[in-house]
C-alpha cells in the first residue's frame, strides 16, 4: 500500500478578526475570524483549517446600473434604500457579513460624505453583523470618504478597502488609528501583492490586519490564472513567508455577473438555457473554484448562489 503523504508546513496564514463585540469595544453581536490555515484548502487530514470560509452579501448605496434582471428581482423593493437593503439580506437571507459598496460616492454620482455618514450610522444602529466597507474606486474621492467611514465605525473592527500600491497611505493611517482591518488589492500579481503588504506593514499596521484581494476572474474569464496566483501566494505563506500569509477576499459576484454567460437574457441566447439558472450557476462555480484556491471571504450577490455555496462549505467541513 502506498503511504499517505503528509506535508508538514512551517508557516500558517494569519488570522484576521472582523467585527468587534461589546466586550471588544464595538457593538457587533459576534465577530468573524478568517485565515489561520495550516494547510491547503480542504486538506483536513493534513492539518488544521480552523475557520470556515465566509460569504458577504454585497449591498450598494445606490441602485447598481449594470446588474441584470436575474439579480435585480431579489432586491427590487430595496434598491433605493441601502439601509433596507442591508436589513433585508440580514433578516431575510441570514447574511452574517455585509459588504457595503459606496458606489454613490463616485465623482460622477457625487453622494456627499454627510449622506454616507448618516447611512453608516443607521446601519450600525439597526444591524449587528460585522461590516466590510468598500469605496467607489476613485482614489481621490476614496481618500476623502473612507477615512470618514473609518472614523464613524471606530472600534467596530471593520474590513475597509481597497488600497493599492499607488494609493495606500491615507486609508492605512485611518484604519490603523481606528482599529480596523484593510483590504490590499493587487492586479493578479504576486510581486505587487507582496510589495503592498510590506508597504502597509511599514506604516505600522500589523500583518494580522491585512486581507489580500488578489483580483479574480470569473469562470471563463481568467479563473485559472487567478487560481495559480492564489495558489502560489498560499504555498509561499504556508512555507513561512509571513509577509504574504494573508487571507483572501474574492469579489465573486462582481466578476461572475460581468460575464455575458451569466447576465444575458433568455431571448439573447435561447440555446444557453434559462438565465435564472445560468446566472446563479456561473456565480456558484466561480465561487467554489476560488474556495479551492484558498478564498477566505467571498463577496457575492445572488441569494440562491449564496445558499448553494454555503451548503457546499458546510458539507466539505462536516467530513
Amino acid at each position: 500500500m502506498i503511504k499517505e503523504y503528509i506535508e508538514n508546513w512551517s508557516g500558517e496564514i494569519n488570522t484576521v478578526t472582523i467585527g468587534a463585540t461589546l466586550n471588544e469595544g464595538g457593538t457587533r453581536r459576534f465577530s468573524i475570524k478568517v485565515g489561520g490555515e495550516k494547510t491547503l484548502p480542504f486538506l483536513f487530514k493534513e492539518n488544521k483549517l480552523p475557520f470556515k470560509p465566509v460569504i458577504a452579501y454585497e449591498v450598494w448605496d445606490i441602485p447598481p446600473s449594470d446588474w441584470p434582471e436575474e439579480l435585480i428581482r431579489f432586491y427590487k423593493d430595496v434598491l433605493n434604500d441601502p439601509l433596507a437593503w442591508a436589513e433585508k439580506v440580514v433578516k431575510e437571507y441570514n447574511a452574517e457579513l455585509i459588504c457595503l459598496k459606496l458606489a454613490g460616492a463616485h465623482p460622477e454620482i457625487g453622494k456627499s460624505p454627510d449622506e454616507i455618514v448618516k447611512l453608516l450610522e443607521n446601519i450600525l444602529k439597526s444591524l449587528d453583523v460585522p461590516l466590510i466597507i468598500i469605496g467607489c474606486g476613485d482614489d481621490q474621492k476614496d481618500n476623502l470618504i473612507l477615512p470618514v467611514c473609518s472614523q464613524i465605525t471606530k472600534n467596530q473592527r471593520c474590513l475597509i478597502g481597497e488600497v493599492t500600491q499607488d494609493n495606500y497611505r491615507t486609508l492605512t493611517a485611518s484604519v490603523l488609528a481606528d482599529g480596523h482591518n484593510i483590504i490590499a488589492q493587487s492586479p493578479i500579481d504576486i510581486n505587487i501583492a507582496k510589495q503592498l503588504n510590506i508597504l502597509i506593514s511599514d506604516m505600522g499596521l500589523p500583518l494580522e490586519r491585512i486581507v489580500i484581494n488578489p483580483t479574480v476572474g470569473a469562470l471563463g474569464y481568467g479563473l485559472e490564472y487567478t487560481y495559480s496566483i492564489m495558489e502560489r501566494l498560499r504555498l509561499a505563506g504556508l512555507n513561512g513567508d509571513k509577509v504574504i500569509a494573508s487571507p483572501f477576499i474574492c469579489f465573486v459576484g462582481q466578476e461572475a455577473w460581468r460575464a455575458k454567460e451569466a447576465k444575458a437574457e433568455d431571448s439573447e441566447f435561447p440555446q444557453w438555457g434559462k438565465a435564472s439558472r445560468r446566472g446563479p450557476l456561473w456565480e456558484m462555480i466561480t465561487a467554489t473554484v476560488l474556495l479551492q484556491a484558498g478564498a477566505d471571504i467571498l463577496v457575492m450577490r445572488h441569494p440562491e448562489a449564496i445558499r448553494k455555496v454555503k451548503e457546499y462549505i458546510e458539507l466539505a467541513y462536516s467530513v
Partner: protein
Amino acid sequence: MFIIGELINGMYKEIGKAIKEKNKAIIQDCALKQVKAGADALDLNCGPVAKDPLSDMPWLVETVQQVVDKPLCIDSSKPKVVEAGLKVAKNKTIINSTTADLEKLEVLVDLARRYNAKLIGLTLSSKGVPQNKEQRLELAAQIVAYCSEKDFPIEDLYLDPVVLPVNVAQAQQKDILESIHEFKIISEPPPKTIVGLSNVSQGTKLRKLINRTFMVMAVAFGLDSAILDPLDKELMDAIITAELILNKHIYCDSFLEACKKK
C-alpha cells in the same frame, strides 16, 4: 538559510576579555546585534585560551539567554564543556561539533540524543582533513550511518564539508561545493548541510568579498545553514538575493526587507 552568528567567540579580543571578566553587557550586546542583523541562532565559543571553560560555557549560555530567545550553538571540542552548556540551555541546542571518529561520535551523538539537541558533523577524522570529494562523502556516510544506527534523527544532523582557506587549498574549493550537494543524497530524509564560512578567506586580503562569493555559490549548491558574521550586511543581502534567484522567495521590490521581516 539558517544563519548562525559566529561573533561570540573568546578568540576575539573583546569577547575573550568579557568572558574573563564576566562582563555580561558586552556579550549581550553582541548577541542582540547579531539577532537584529538576521541571525537565527548564535554560536558560543569560550575561545582557545579559556582557563575555565566548564564554568565559562554555562555562564555564556545563561548570559545570552537573558536577552535572546534563539537556539544556541554550543561550540567546543570538549564534550564536558558541551554538556555543561546543554544543561542550562532553554531552547533546542546545536552541538558544534563531532568528527567522523568513532570515539567522538559515541560521546556526542549520545549527548545530542539525551538533550534532544541538533548536531554538527565535520567530515574530518583523526587521519586529518579530507583531500577530495570522495573522502568527504565517505566520512559523511560514516557519520550518517552511525546516527541512523543510534536512532538519531537525520534531519537534526548538519554535515559540514570543512571549508578550507582558498589561499592554501584552491584546488579543493570545487569539491567542497559539490560535497554540499552530494551530502543530500546520502540518506532519506536527507541530512542538513552547514559551513563555517569565514575559514574560506583566512589569511587573504579581501576577506569579505571571498566570503560573500563562496557563500552565494554554496547557496546555489543547496546549502541549508552557515556559521558566519551576520553584521556583514553585504554578505547577508547577497544570501537573500541568491535565494531569490533560486526562487526560494517571491520577488517584490522590497525583497531584502521582506526577508528580514521573517
